[in-house]
């Protein structure tokens, strides 16, 4: 066990854990930020997606040691700016407008992947959406609405 300083959603947190512990479980069990979900633990479903220094990563495949000194943003922090809840992120608003979630379990990961995509590619084509989102499984199969919502968010962010 060792101490790891982490920057999560703009806040400095210190956790005591084995450096090999996946960030996913540190977030969920130690910091009790349960918005980031467990779906497979092997990097195949995307439910655990968070942003590490602005890049979408699978937190089940990122160790606590890897995350040290980096900026971690989870679904709970997506609407935050400088530590304050300003508003929902454009992707979250689009998700509500297009009524995407069914059971909702995969959606934190979907939203985090979509937000990272739009940060890099403000005008994604359908095939760019396919590439960016293929790692995120939705068993309720809301894919059709996810695609629509990404286009909606892209439009809003451009406007």
């Amino acid at each position, binding site marked *: 066990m060792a101490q790891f300083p982490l920057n999560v959603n703009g806040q400095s947190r210190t956790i005591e854990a084995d450096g090999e512990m996946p960030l996913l479980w540190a977030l969920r069990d130690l910091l009790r930020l349960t918005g980031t979900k467990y779906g497979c*633990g092997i990097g195949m479903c995307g439910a655990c997606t968070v942003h590490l220094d602005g890049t979408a990563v699978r937190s089940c495949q990122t160790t606590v040691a890897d995350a040290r000194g980096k900026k971690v943003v989870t679904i709970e922090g997506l*609407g935050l700016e400088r530590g304050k809840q300003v508003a929902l992120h454009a992707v979250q608003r689009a998700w509500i407008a297009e009524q995407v979630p069914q059971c909702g379990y995969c959606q934190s990961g979907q939203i985090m992947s979509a937000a990272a995509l739009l940060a890099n590619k403000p005008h994604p084509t359908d095939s760019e959406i396919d590439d960016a989102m293929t790692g995120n499984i939705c068993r309720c199969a809301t894919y*059709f609405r996810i695609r629509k919502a990404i286009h909606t968010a892209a439009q809003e962010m451009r406007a």
Partner: protein
Amino acid sequence: MKTKQEQVGTTTQRKISRRAFLGTGAAAAAGGALVIGFTLRRHFHNVDVADEAAGKVAVGNPFDAWVHVQPDGSAELVLAQSEMGQGVYTALPMLLAEEADLDWQRVRVVQSEFSLGTGGSGSVMSNYLPLRQAGAMVRTVMIATAARQWGVAESECTTLNSEVMHARSSRRVSYGQLVPAARAMPLPNFKTVKLKDPAQFTLIGKPTQHLDIPDKCTGAARFGLDVRLPGMVYAVIARCPTFGGTPAKFDATKALAVPGVLQVFEIPAKGYRIFTAGGIAVVATSTWAAMQGRKALQITWNRGPHSTESTDMLRAQMKEALAHAPAWTSDTEGVSLDNVLASRRVESVYEFPFLAHACMEPMNITAHLREGRCEVWAPSQAADAMRSVIAKELELAESSVTVHTTLMGGGFGRRYQYDFPAEVAQIAKHVEVPVQLVWTREDDMTHDFYRPAGMRRMRGALDTHGNIVAWSDHLADVPLSYQWGEPGKRKPDGSELPGRPVYPIAQVRMGFTPIESAVPRAWWRSVETSFNGLAVECFTDELAHAAGEDPYRFRRRLLQLPEIPRVRGKDEGPPPDRNRLIAVLDLAAQMAGWGTSLGPHRGRGIACTTNYAYLAQVAEVTVENDTIRVDRLVTAVDCGQVVNPNGARSQLEGGMLFTLSSILKEAITIRDGAVEQQNFDDYSVLRMPEAPALETWFVESHAAPHGLGEAAVGLTGPAVANAIFAATGKRLRRMPFRMDESTA
């Protein structure tokens, strides 16, 4: 309430003590509210479980739903149904608010502590009338109260947005203000209370946003796995990979040396109905530590009596079964179909694999046992039944067990099962603090209750006019009834077979042969429909092509032939309305541009169903280099009155793509008595690039509504398979579909 059987009754202040039984946090607030209790009847597959649950519910309380109209003008609907993303928490209050003329912005749903089963697409269907009646009772009482206060005729009063208005005297009063007086008024009889003419609906039929969606976009929604309690610990179980296997011996030394691991102990397997594997439980301070501890366990398994079972073996048995007469047959007339005069005969074998539910949120449950009471947080489709299971395991009175239903990351039938509740009860006996039992994805994949696997031989005969004169279907599968039927009372029957085809056919024979297996099976988003619907509508397509007719025209023509007179079976229900089916066939064909050219490598297929509702679908596919891509699904639906088009669409879309995933990608296979697939790397499911464009058209109707969560499950499979045939000339009959299909 004079009789317990009454569907709707009244509870006013005198009956408020029921709130203790109900146990919601709103009990105090209910003190000054107008309260109407009523009963929403369940309607779902898992009938035995339901009955058991219902038996408990009925004790001392005839109601399972309540409306509270508060003095502040807000209204609450207290429901026993659970929300799994089907949108019932929006659709059900819409029914109430419509008839009561409630201000929609001020309606809330509260889940009651006991929950009935939610499944079988029945939530909206079975609640349509009772909820409207309850709403109409609210409106009627409010009008009566206002009319009396004003000394005017009730007929001169109108209602809107939680207010009663009297136009002639320009007076208005809010429901909230009327509540104190309304509570003393007699309630109208639910049977005779006047309902709105559906043509006047303003809320029902309007796309309405789901109330639970914002929280699911911010991480605020709490699922079972998100339950966090002070001082809690986490548990995983090492289960024998083979079904029926048990630990012979184990050494926990290394596991206990893993930092964070607190306890390791054995829990026994549980038999009939509970069906747990038993195994070695590892309890730790974090989920990850528990998983690491489990990895460090040294276990020698006794692989049990079924350790040689394999998919190959089961398939060989199915083939053998289909080569012989069925163990059960519907044939009572003794007419051999071979003797039916026919100009053409068609025969095909279809095959379907075991399927996992693979709910996005793996199974889990949290329990805290202390001082003779147990509190449980369960992502469960039948929390009340779970309470019985847990109470029994802990040898507690049911009243000492409280089950909180959490949000669920998918259900699809998996969350009816008693295995994880029984396991957490076993573990809680050893642990003093709250403990969360977590199934890893691998646990979930390898110890599911699977959709049955099977094979079937379909035979059909056409006369010289291209009409179907004979149809036979011999199914050999690993039946649900052998899993859930009481040991010793199991015998083959027709329960897993489809009803008669909707097309008029003089000679129909159904046959069934059960195949024994140790692989656990259960309900899976409609179960039989998922394999029956495909066989029926693909085989119909085969017959259309054998008759040399366009498959859409063929169906349409057959549906217009005169009904063949016969005695309908007792449990068959009324015959489907063929005109409604023809209407959706026409609509789907028209919207999809049926008959126009699609270009090379592409094809269209059509299918229709009367399961759950009237639906027809046209699928468009491209098959290039042996890769199947589904481009577009055009669906026409007549499900009666659509309550919330947003939710209805969403349910249908989910059902279609869930099915698409199963027919194109999914299979569970067995080897050496265990499931071969472990996780989403070897159990592939549909992903974004494979999701087609969806177009869904509703037929406007005020007929009684039908649920839609499972309606598309028997539809998308055949539409896609028929489209693959149209594109390639190759008929695929073994799922999941591959262009290089082998039936060996």
